[in-house]
């Protein structure tokens, strides 16, 4: 299994798209967070460190979420399409070991991407004269990476049975629903009928990614951290990962 995980990780991080998106993401974040920003939110200029932290983390969260989806999208379908599966399965590797390893490989590639964003966050902290925050930044990235890991696992699991484009759309939907969890919560409370039911189903199926991001932000700004959303996301991640034990394609 380690050989499969290692191989998947290597293949993913060698992708050109991976590097291009990661580079653009880091560049945007550095430009927005370290320059003399004209960023306005609700008509007020956002400039102080505490105000810039959520902005920096939102960019990190968005780009890393996008990368997690992109990185995880093709891995499993490609294996089936190229028939690489044959040479693996004839060696006594069980389908669940195979799917689990590919999913974990994808997750590690997403984690690697998050760690590369750590560099950008460190630059951001230093630029605002807070070098003492380098360690909390690392903790912040670890918490943020839970979102990426969840997205990567979810897209990988969907791609076991579904075509690439379905897995991609599912990934984007999960990300959007996770980030808009608060909005969906309000919608579920206020709407009636099908809309409310759909919102409740989405709330049940997706973790509150924005709440996890908020906890990461709190680590940097020194605000109290609520472990609830983080643990809930980890629990959902565990459930999604456990699906790799039961899902496989009928024909390989």
């Amino acid at each position: 299994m380690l050989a499969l995980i290692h191989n998947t990780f290597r293949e993913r991080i060698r992708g050109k798209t991976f590097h291009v998106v990661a580079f653009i993401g880091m560049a945007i974040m550095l430009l927005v967070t370290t320059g003399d920003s004209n960023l306005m939110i609700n008509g007020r200029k956002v400039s102080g460190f505490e105000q810039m932290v959520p902005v920096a983390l939102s960019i990190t969260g968005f780009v890393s979420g996008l990368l997690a989806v992109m990185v995880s999208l093709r891995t499993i379908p490609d294996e089936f399409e190229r028939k690489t599966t044959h040479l693996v399965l004839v060696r006594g590797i069980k389908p669940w070991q195979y799917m689990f390893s590919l999913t974990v490989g994808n997750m590690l590639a997403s984690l690697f991407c998050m760690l590369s964003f750590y560099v950008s966050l460190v630059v951001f902290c230093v630029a605002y004269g807070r070098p003492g925050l380098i360690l909390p930044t690392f903790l912040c990235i670890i918490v943020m990476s839970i979102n990426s890991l969840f997205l990567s696992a979810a897209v990988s699991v969907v791609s076991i049975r579904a075509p690439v484009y379905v897995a991609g759309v599912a990934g984007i939907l999960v990300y959007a629903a996770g980030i808009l969890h608060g909005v969906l919560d309000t919608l579920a409370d206020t709407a009636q009928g099908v809309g409310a039911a759909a919102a409740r189903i989405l709330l049940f199926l997706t973790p509150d990614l924005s709440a996890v991001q908020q906890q990461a932000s709190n680590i940097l700004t020194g605000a109290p951290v609520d472990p609830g959303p983080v643990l809930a996301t980890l629990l959902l991640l565990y459930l999604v990962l456990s699906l790799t034990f039961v899902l496989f394609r009928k024909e390989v």
Partner: protein
Amino acid sequence: MKILECCGLVKTYGRTKAVDGLSFSVEKGEVLGFLGPNGAGKTTTIKMILGLTRPSGGKVLIDRNTKTGYSPETPYFHPFLTGHEVMRFYSRLQKLDRQTAGRQIAELLELVGLSGAAGIRVRNYSKGMLQRLAFAQALLGDPELLVLDEPTSGLDAVGRIEMLGLIGRLKREGKTIIMNSHILGDVEKVADRILIIVNGKPAGMADRSDLAGAGLEEMFVKTVGGAGHACADT
């Protein structure tokens, strides 16, 4: 002594029967040539033998502990790996210890003539080189049963002669080989027995001694009958 037995194998894809009541056995140490026109169900049968697809009917009887090597018709390897890394990857999947793996990888790459290209990424390999690499990885772990799907496809004349020589050598070493091919001459050179299937059904079985007079080509033409035998792409 039988190493493998297929009893009434059936495989259906929707309404199409790719394999229809195929029964045969393979003796330890023999080379079984598996012949048939395109779409006859050869690859589907091989996939059932290897456990890659489940038969719709019948069964494959094989000792679970039988070490099996497989060389696919169109080998695909992760393009960013070098030939040596591909071998290392599969040796790790087989849980070969580092020392054994190192020794076997060197020997097998030498055997298939890829020692000089071991450090080159497989994306730069020709079809023939990929075929050789596929053959080498199938031999990792010293398998008792080798399943070769079109092992000479993509090879030039010299490569084909070398590959058939290798198969002959493995046969002399006591390996059991199932060789799937549509090149009659190749099968005739190395097989002890030949099984012909047409439209997923067994159409003929011959020992090498049976072919002494007529030759495989004549037998094949008689069996297949030159009829249109297109069926599902398997």
